[in-house]
């Protein structure tokens, strides 16, 4: 039985084991039908032209792990931003770990999707937001919707400035031979509220993992959301991240995606505008090697006037790694005075590395400013010579240059401890000790 059949046939059993109200049942049922019709995406589809899931799907994934697994904090401390106090919503093999988490209901909700979906007091909110911005067509998103049950539920009330960042971490222990998990996160940020969120998926041993994650983010008027995704997983881990963002007027949402490891990583990042003077930021740093594959598939849908979007993706590819950047900007007829900017710079340092870069601008308004720039190159030799001339050996000079290349994106990280952490990961990736804290 292949994975698709396994998932479809287990849907009934899944629905029976949890008590859900009928609206949710309807949402799930139509979602599984959509997935059953479409199946997993293949390279024949334009959106998946450069990324094949075939090899990954051959694994015999367990889709509902039976055991609750525990991890000692000391084992995984390094994956937390432990230098500062944070809220934490932590999952182990798809199940919530109360032991590692630090949730709250005090003035804001940082808790579990399973509670929100199943407890009557959240019903109104779920009816209003759940699956409202996520695609009802895209097969992997609907697959997630069909099985949506666990993940982080975050609701920030009006005018609340959340002092501590929120960490959402999904650990895989590897106790199953191969594991598929489908986290579902819902983030609602009220008017004038401000929140910072860090999301991470981390395998703890080499058994294959397939994560098909969906996150919906709703930013109300003038809300500020800074979302950071850290992808630095093992070679056996595969991640499909589907993030959908709905923004109301004058809200500012930024998503930074740091892709440093994993087997196949696909980031579907979608921004939708509902109101004027919205600001959307999409930034990413990708540094990979071996046969790793990272695919960024972004969409900014400008539907309203006077909004801005800023995209900046930096990619460094070593060995036989592959990168994909497909950045779509859609400017509807009504979206006059749109200011949309897209930048995508790629450096290939491996002889067998490949980048597929595709900016896609579709503009139907006539008074807009849209610009995009895409470069593909090698490390600047004259810059290398300059640094070597100052006595900096080749390897360190390369690292310094690559660091400089990613600097624009690093500079916009708003949590200082996270910024330090990311620069350390980068220095580590580049295999150098630069002798000073970057």
């Amino acid at each position, binding site marked *: 039985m292949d994975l698709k059949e396994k998932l479809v046939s287990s849907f009934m059993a899944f629905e029976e084991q949890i008590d859900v109200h009928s609206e949710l049942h309807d949402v799930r049922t139509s979602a599984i039908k959509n997935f059953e019709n479409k199946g997993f995406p293949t390279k024949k589809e334009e959106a998946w032209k450069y990324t094949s899931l075939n090899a990954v799907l051959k694994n015999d994934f367990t889709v509902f792990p039976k055991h609750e697994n525990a991890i000692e904090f000391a084992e995984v401390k390094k994956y937390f931003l432990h230098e500062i106090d944070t809220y934490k919503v932590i999952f182990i093999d798809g199940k919530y770990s109360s032991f590692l988490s630090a949730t709250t209901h005090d003035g804001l909700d940082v808790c579990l999707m399973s509670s929100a979906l199943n407890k009557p007091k959240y019903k109104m909110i779920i009816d209003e937001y759940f699956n409202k911005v996520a695609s009802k067509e895209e097969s992997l998103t609907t697959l997630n919707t069909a099985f949506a049950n666990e993940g982080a539920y975050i609701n920030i009330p009006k005018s609340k400035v959340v002092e501590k960042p929120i960490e959402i971490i999904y650990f895989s222990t590897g106790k199953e031979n191969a594991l598929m998990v489908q986290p579902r996160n819902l983030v609602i940020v009220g008017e004038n509220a401000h929140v910072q969120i860090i999301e991470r998926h981390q395998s703890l041993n080499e058994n294959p993992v397939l994560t098909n994650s969906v996150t919906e983010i709703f930013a109300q008027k003038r809300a500020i959301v800074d979302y950071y995704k850290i992808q630095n997983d093992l070679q056996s881990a595969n991640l499909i991240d589907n993030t959908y963002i709905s923004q109301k007027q004058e809200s500012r949402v930024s998503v930074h995606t740091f892709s440093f490891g994993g087997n196949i990583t696909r980031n579907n990042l979608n921004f939708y505008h509902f109101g004027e003077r919205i600001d959307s930021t999409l930034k990413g740093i990708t540094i990979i090697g071996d046969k790793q594959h990272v695919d960024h598939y972004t969409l900014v849908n400008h539907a309203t006037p006077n909004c801005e979007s800023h995209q900046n993706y930096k990619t460094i590819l070593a060995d036989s790694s592959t990168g994909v950047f497909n950045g779509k900007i859609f400017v509807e007829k009504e979206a006059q005075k749109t200011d949309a900017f897209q930048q995508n710079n790629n450096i290939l340092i491996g002889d067998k590395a490949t980048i597929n870069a595709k900016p896609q601008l579709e503009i139907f308004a006539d008074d807009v400013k849209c610009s995009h720039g895409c470069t593909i190159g090698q490390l*600047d*030799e*004259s*810059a290398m*010579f*300059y*640094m*070597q*001339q*100052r*006595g*900096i*050996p*080749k390897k*360190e*000079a390369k690292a*310094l*240059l690559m*660091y*400089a290349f990613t*600097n*624009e994106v*690093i*500079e916009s990280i708003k949590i200082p401890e996270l910024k330090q952490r990311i620069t350390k990961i980068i220095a580590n990736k580049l295999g150098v000790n*630069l*002798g*000073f804290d*970057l």
Partner: protein
Amino acid sequence: MLKISNLHASVEDKDILKGINLEIKAGEVHAIMGPNGAGKSTLSSIIAGNENYEVSEGEILLEGEDISELAPEERAHKGVFLSFQYPVEIPGVSVTNFIKTAINEKRKANGQEEMPANEMLKLIREKSELLEMDRKFLSRSLNEGFSGGEKKRNEIFQMAMLEPKIAILDETDSGLDIDALRIVANGVNKLKNENNAVLVITHYQRLLDYIIPDFVHVLMDGKIVKSGGKELAIELEEKGYDWIKSELV
């Protein structure tokens, strides 16, 4: 200090240097002048070890040791410094952090401990004052958004920090206004002593009013065709390079 003999070099099968002979002793300032395309910048790049050029013949001795097979960083560690005509921008790495890295790499290569932080700070303060550099300048990203003058001043600041045996100034006067030129030249003159040497590469005589050479050489078509004292530079400024050509014929 530096002895170059019968140096031939090419890039992509095109001969650029066709047998250069040059000896610079400790305590001396030499200038190489010549028309565009004569091979001046190639010569400075090759002394510093740029791997884009193929050295087919000849040798480069630094204090008697052949350095022509060494990597650029190894030559730097032995005391070769090249002030670039077009210094490179490195975003996110401050002037201070860059020079700290350079100094400590040099010390490491020479078997020394890293320079203690307070000593480093003192040295940075001292040398930046010599180049009349603002304190804020030191925390800016290396060369990013620097004016032409600031870039060149920063080059000489790095030279002051690294204390090379042989400093090659490649077109250091290009893009400089008169004040910046004075500051840069003043810096070079203060750093000059009996144990080091300076090679000035320039198209114009202007810089040589401030950094006074002991010897002037004319490089044309990959060869040194004439050598003399500082008065040769003045003569070249007045008459151009054509008279040398006709003299050669």
